[in-house]
């Protein structure tokens, strides 16, 4: 297991380097096809009617006038060894890992991302718990009561959940619970350690919007998995041993049916940790998703790079955890 982890880590680092390279390429090369030059990119950050020298100054400050591979190498070096940055009277040292400085504000990227992480974490993990518990239990119940009214109703609702876009669900919830009935405050993020109750109250609507979609998916997945698993021979054996039906369903049936769910859950959560873009936008939560939108709108390469790498990192970790977990759950994989 130890060598497995080490090998995966090395491969992951390599993957992240490649991700950074691709991001660089997309950022610079694609607009070039549409005729954009680094000069016109730099004009985005200056005011109206800039002098040519002002634009060139910005270009130089942001490093845009250097060849691509130099910029890329500089970026990698910053992550590993930190970099010195001058955006004012003093030179500041940005310790590793240094994700560079925002093109727009010329302030370091990492502190912004760091403050966004708890928001996305709260949103993603809270929603994940809700959707996992509700989706799986509904799926199990549906599978056990297959064909019943409950099953049909649950699967119809699940179909709706999968089909409705998050911003639609979110806006309906806002309109009803916040503006029409005044049951909940307009959501703002309250850090957990500041006030756990307010943290939860403000996140309820975003959690529900996000979880509804996934719960529906997981209910359907679990139902299918359970139906398949409950037809397996070892279920029959478990019953033949005289086990109570509850034990048969949970210990024997659910455990086997959950394996694909676990792998998918790992992937879903990994992806969400990189930013639940639509949910954060709808509710105005300043997480990594919102950070991504702003970075892209501002064509702010260091921020785009930073958040892309962070998201890739989460996905890589999630993948690794899922692989390890899978080996733990299913002993056949270990040998």
């Amino acid at each position, binding site marked *: 297991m130890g060598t497995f982890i080490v090998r995966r880590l090395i491969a992951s680092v390599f993957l992240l380097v490649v991700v950074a390279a691709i991001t660089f390429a997309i950022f610079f090369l694609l607009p070039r096809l549409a005729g954009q030059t680094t000069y016109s990119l730099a004009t985005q950050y200056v005011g109206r009617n800039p002098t040519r020298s002002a634009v060139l100054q910005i270009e130089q400050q942001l490093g845009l006038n250097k060849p691509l591979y130099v910029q890329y190498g500089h970026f990698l070096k910053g992550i590993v060894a930190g970099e010195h940055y001058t955006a004012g009277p003093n030179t500041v040292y940005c310790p590793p890992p240094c994700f560079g*400085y925002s093109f727009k504000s010329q302030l370091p990227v990492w502190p912004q991302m760091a403050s966004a992480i708890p928001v996305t974490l709260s949103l993603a993990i809270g929603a994940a718990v809700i959707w996992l518990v509700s989706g799986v239990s509904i799926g199990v119940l549906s599978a056990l009561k297959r064909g019943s009214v409950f099953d049909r109703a649950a699967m119809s609702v699940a179909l709706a959940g999968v089909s409705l876009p998050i*911003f639609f669900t979110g806006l309906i919830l806002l309109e009803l619970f916040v503006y029409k009935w005044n049951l909940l405050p307009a959501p703002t993020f309250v850090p957990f350690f500041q006030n756990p109750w307010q943290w939860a109250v403000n996140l309820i609507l975003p959690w529900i919007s996000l979880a509804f979609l996934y719960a529906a998916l997981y209910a359907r997945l679990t139902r299918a998995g359970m139906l398949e698993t409950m037809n397996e021979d070892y279920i029959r054996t478990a019953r033949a041993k005289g086990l109570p039906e509850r034990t048969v369903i949970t210990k024997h049936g659910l455990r086997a049916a959950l394996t694909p769910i676990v792998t998918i859950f790992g992937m879903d959560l990994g992806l969400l940790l990189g930013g639940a873009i639509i949910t954060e936008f709808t*509710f105005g939560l300043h997480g990594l998703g919102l950070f991504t939108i702003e970075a892209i709108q501002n064509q702010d390469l260091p921020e785009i790079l930073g958040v892309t790498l962070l998201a890739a990192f989460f996905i890589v970790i999630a993948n690794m955890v899922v692989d390890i977990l899978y080996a733990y759950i299913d002993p056949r994989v270990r040998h």
Partner: protein
Amino acid sequence: MRRRNTIGLAAFSGITALVLAACGGSSGSPSPGPSSAGFNAAITSTVNPSTHKGGTITFNLTTWEDSMDPGGTYYAANWNFTRYYATPLMTYNSCQGSCGLHLIPALATAPGTPSSNNTVWTYHIKSGMKFSDGQPITSADVKYAVMRTFAKEVLPGGPVYFQNLLAGNAATYKGPYKDKGKDLTSVTTPNSTTVVFHLNKPFADFNYVVAIPQTAPVPKNKDTGASYQLHPVSSGPYMVQSATLNKTFVLVPNPNWNPAMDPAVHQYASKIILNINPNANDIDNRLIAGDIQMDMAGTGVQSAARAKIVTNPTLKASSDDPVTGFMWFIYQDTQVPPLTNVHCRMAIEYAANKTTLQDAYGGPYQGSIATTAMPPNIIGYKHFDLYNAGSHPGGDTAAAKQQLSLCGKPNGFSIGMAYRSDRPRDTSAAQALQAALAPVGIKVSLHGFPSGTYFTNFAGVPKYMTTHGIGLATGGWGPDWPDAYGWGWALFDGKAIVPAGNTNIGALNDPVVNNLFLKLEAATSASAQATISGQIDMQLMKDAVIVPAVYAKALLYRSSDLTNVMVQPIFGMYNYGTLVTK
């Protein structure tokens, strides 16, 4: 000033607009203020004048625009907001109508004293004033504020008037970070309360230049460059308590504030909070529900809320629809045949359908039909209508055809038109004009370009326009200050034409206009300025260099939690410096 409309996530806005419009109507309307003063009340008078002290005002804004650093911002909303913590030498009076277009001294004791040829401007600042950290404010701090605006690598966002107008070593000065220890010789401080500006040409409008937030004093020992915007040292009624980039900006009263410093702003509320909320529709919802008090952008509510407000009498009575000072229009490139002939240009003026153009730019609440080259909040504005927009808002085809024969194209002609393809309003306007010109035989071919490169690569490149036969281009403009120079020099003066990033897209080089601008530069009396401005406007319309579309308006919602609310005409939005809570 530049007004940026949040196009951003238009898709979400569009769909949600439908949803919310359907859910809207008379449901959940909040109770209006103590007395809902009525629609447009804040344009002509102060609604609920009050001096109540205390309370919190919460602003929302969709993105951390530009910069909160007074030295590096170009947005009207920011110029309005920075008055809370940055006091420039001069400022605009906090009153309505033409009163609000006039300058009053802020940090300065009086308007600047120019030399005989308007090349040297002397200002005296009020003595005994202090920064929020207790340091005294001196002329050196004003000079330093101007010096740091030359550091374009760190403060790229602000206007460049100082670079363009100052003499001495301004042409080569790189700012206090790169040129450490070097002095900017164009600005001198003979004593601690006097600052003198040496210009490289006569400039009568210099008072307007120093009204830009860039002259608000900055203590050199507390300047941190790019991060200064998060903890600026305040010279205004409020100071920054905390700021998180792209998230929040919290102001509390400045204990060292002296009300004599700037009569245009007050210290009433005990806390001012700005929160960034990217969901523009949600901002409108919170505003109407009373969760926040102001949308800092000041460009009006989104279409969903607009539909709700104008159809609900209670809500409408709590809203104002002021002219913002911005204008939408279509340039006519005088270098592109056959628009080289003024009569062909006049034909287009007559044929344009003003009603469909108004619809394209958002309808009557988003703009009133324009007939002049200058918007109404420019000093010297006078209404006139050379091309029968009043009598023929749908276009005067007869007069157009007459002009076509005069320019030798009785059956019309073909011409290209540029527009910004990622802006729905531009796109609609281009299509509207195309449809309006077709019946008289003018065939318009549309060319869409992304707004990021519109001025740098396409419409703003005169050679590109002439090579590709593109004679029309959509555009919009807001003045940096309310006279014809601040409005129109960069648009219409022959000297403003540059090979790339050109804003005189009409490529107008009319000696009459050029001379009038020179006269305006030299004029010192307000009445002379007003008269010359009017003359420039008239000549521009005779030259038919632009097809005016609308004077932009914005439907603003007056929160019931606020009193002492008024529309400041130079910003075209509610005046922030004088807001009071209920």
